[in-house]
């Protein structure tokens, strides 16, 4: 039997490295125990990632044992509260708290996801922002959610979890799929179009963020979602981390970088962070009022 020892999980690049290594090493194992003795803290990205890993193991492993009793009490309470434990077959009903519920989607449900963001993520009791700003943020996050379905081909679905940090007035959301990754999707388009396939993962990821670039050739123009999101994050002091295949994109403090990443991840993990302060936001300015076409 293989034992996965879940470490303490924050949401820095080194934490994503650990999570991806765990996924790469264990997701095809047949006899597995998950042990939380070393896990003293777990952020929303860890919850979403483990949701994917356990879902995969529940489908494919012959024997899976989740040792809930090895969890630290506070961590366990947090995982019960956000619905992770019950979703994984453990005991305990979720309740409302600072953790935004764990969620798995196997098909696109944009209305339900919007409601989730509205009810749990941008909760009125937590943050004081105008309805316009709330709608603007939700629109941008929905672009991400739909992108995860349109391009990934994730066989086990899309996993989300969030967290509100009242002390720093931050909202974080992680969305993970276990599909082919953004560079894989971009490269698929290139092969289909008989272009040169010799493009690095970090360059392919950068291309996916460029305006009008779509990895999914159709008979209509597309390929704006990631570009719009990037623009929003750059203008509004947000942070966006994307880990996919052998590339890591970081958009923060008005800058963007696309770098080689190891270990490779056959999927896409996105961590998005907003500061909940209305004064910091630019909603694109006044509309110029010119004709649209």
């Amino acid at each position, binding site marked *: 039997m293989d034992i996965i020892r879940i470490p303490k999980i924050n949401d820095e690049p080194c934490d994503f490295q650990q999570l991806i290594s765990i996924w790469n090493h264990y997701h095809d194992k047949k006899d597995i125990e998950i042990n939380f003795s070393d896990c003293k803290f777990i952020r929303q990205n860890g919850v979403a990632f483990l949701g994917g890993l356990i879902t995969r193991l529940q489908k494919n492993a012959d024997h899976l044992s989740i040792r809930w009793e090895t969890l630290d009490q506070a961590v366990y309470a947090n995982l019960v509260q956000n619905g992770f434990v019950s979703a994984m077959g453990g005991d305990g009903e979720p309740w409302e708290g600072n953790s935004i519920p764990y969620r798995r989607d196997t098909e696109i449900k944009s209305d339900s996801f919007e409601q989730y963001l509205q009810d749990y993520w941008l909760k009125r009791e937590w943050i004081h922002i105008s*309805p316009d700003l709330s709608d603007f943020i939700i629109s941008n996050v929905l672009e991400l959610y739909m992108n995860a379905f349109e391009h990934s081909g994730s066989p086990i679905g899309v996993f989300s979890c969030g967290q509100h940090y009242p002390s720093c007035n931050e909202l974080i959301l992680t969305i993970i799929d276990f599909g082919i990754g953004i560079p894989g999707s971009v490269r698929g388009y290139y092969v289909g179009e008989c272009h040169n396939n010799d493009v690095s993962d970090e360059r392919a990821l950068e291309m996916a963020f460029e305006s009008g670039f779509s990895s999914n050739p159709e008979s209509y*123009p*597309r390929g704006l979602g990631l570009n719009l999101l990037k623009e929003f994050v750059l203008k509004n002091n947000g942070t966006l981390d994307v880990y996919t295949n052998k590339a890591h994109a970081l958009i923060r403090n008005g800058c963007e970088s696309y770098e080689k990443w190891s270990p490779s991840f056959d999927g896409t993990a996105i961590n998005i962070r907003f500061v909940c302060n209305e004064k910091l936001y630019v909603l694109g300015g006044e509309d110029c009022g010119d004709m649209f076409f």
Partner: protein
Amino acid sequence: MRIVEICSSEDCVIIRIKSEISERCITVDDGEKLYHQIHLKLIKGDSVILDFSGVRLFASPFFNTAIGPLLKDYTNVQLNHFLKIENLSLNGSHILRRVIENAQKYYSDSRYKNAVDKVIAENSEGY
């Protein structure tokens, strides 16, 4: 690129998006549904007003399929004359303008691509 002639019927049709679609204009399917409605009216020669009152949420896949393909079928002059957009929020307006800009580039690129293909095909006929 195919340009469709519009013979004005002097009729004006208002499509109220909130009741026809919903207060969320997000998905490709909803966009396609709206595109067909607009296209049907325009080819009959009707003017169309898209009234976005009460629509809160927008995402680019909706506009990509609702409005983007119109730029293949009609000229900017035709669209500015026959298709009016009203009560669109700042967010919606921002996304729509980007979608239109992208569609214009997309279709002008494909026109360029088609022209190149045509030249290549013509030149190869002689060999």
